[in-house]
Each structure stands twice: as C-alpha cells, then as structure tokens.
C-alpha cells in the first residue's frame, strides 16, 4: 500500500503528463481509457502511460491516492486533473488547451481545434 503510494508519487512527479489506464496507450483495454489516450495521442502530447491491469497494488493505490474511484486518471505536473468525462468536457471546452499552455506542455493546437470541429 505504502509502496504503491510511493511509486505513484514518484511517477506523477517524474513525468509532466501521466495517464493511469487499463491497457497501454498503444493497446488500450477499456473504452474510457482508450478515449483519453486517443485525445492525448491526437493532440500530440507526450505522456507516460501506466497500465493498472498489470499491478493490482497500483490499481487500488491510484484510487486511494486521488480519492477517485475509477480509471482512467490523468495527472499533469503531479496534479490529478480528472477521469474520462472531465477530460472529454475539458477537451471540447478548450480548458485542456489552457491547462497545457499554462503548464508548458507541448501540444498540437491545430489537432485540438480539429477535435472540437468534429464534435462541435
């Protein structure tokens, strides 16, 4: 439990953008994880992916860490941003762009605009 917490803390601090997900960014194993990984990939954001299905300690640990009961979970600069619903809303509203800009995370603005055009 403590081990998982330490491991999570180190991961979210060592990587600017981390997605805790079911499966990997190349092979997601859940529709919700797939959607968030897909948005980040499409926006050209570099991120670390952690497959919670590979480690039961992390799978439970990440829920305790953020007081959030579901996967996926997105972290930016060590801060929990949200799960699938929130990331989807923030993508469509432009808040995700704002957050990445504020935190100096590189992303493709044109791609982000395209997502909104396609879902407007």
């Amino acid at each position, binding site marked *: 439990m403590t081990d998982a917490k330490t491991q999570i803390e180190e991961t979210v601090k060592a990587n600017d953008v981390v997605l805790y997900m079911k499966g990997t960014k190349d092979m997601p194993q859940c529709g919700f994880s797939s959607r968030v990984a897909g948005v980040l990939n499409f926006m050209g954001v570099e991120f670390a992916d952690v497959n919670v299905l590979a480690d039961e300690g992390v799978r439970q640990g990440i829920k305790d860490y953020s007081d959030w009961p579901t996967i996926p979970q997105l972290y930016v600069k060590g801060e929990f941003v949200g799960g699938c*619903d929130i990331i989807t809303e923030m993508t469509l509203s432009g808040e995700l762009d704002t957050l990445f800009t504020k935190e100096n995370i590189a992303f493709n603005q044109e791609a982000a605009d395209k997502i909104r055009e396609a879902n407007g």
Partner: protein
Amino acid sequence: MNKSEEIRSALQAEFSPEMLEVINQSENHRGHGGYSDGESHFLVQIRAAAFADMSRVNRHRAVHKALGADLVGRIHALALEISA
C-alpha cells in the same frame, strides 16, 4: 431496488436536483468484458444548485460520495454529466 433506482434515490436525497436522469446503457455493452446482469453501465445527468461552486473534480467526488463506495464499486462504468 435495482441499481438505477438506488442511484436515483441516493442523488435525489443528497442534492434535490432540478433535473435528474439515470440512463442504463448496459445493453450497449453486451459482450464487452465489463458487462454483467444488465446493470453495469450507467449515464447520470444531473443539475443541482449544490454544484454551483464546485470544481469539475469536486462535482464528481460529491456524486461518488452520495452514491457511496459500495454502490460505485458495483457499477462497472458510471458516466456523469453534472451541471449547476
């Protein structure tokens, strides 16, 4: 009480929402790993004044808390659309 009714009654009691829809989407996911007993996937649309001053994350946390860990744990997928 089925899960839809459990969700509805917990949220009604906690937030007295102006709008509350609990939509069971489980049949859309039949055959997928998380499907079970026709009560695995739900979409909740809720609008309540209580959410006005909360961040997105805190809105979701408030709903999770009102439902309780037991009920949340028994639902495979819970999509939330929360407004104030």
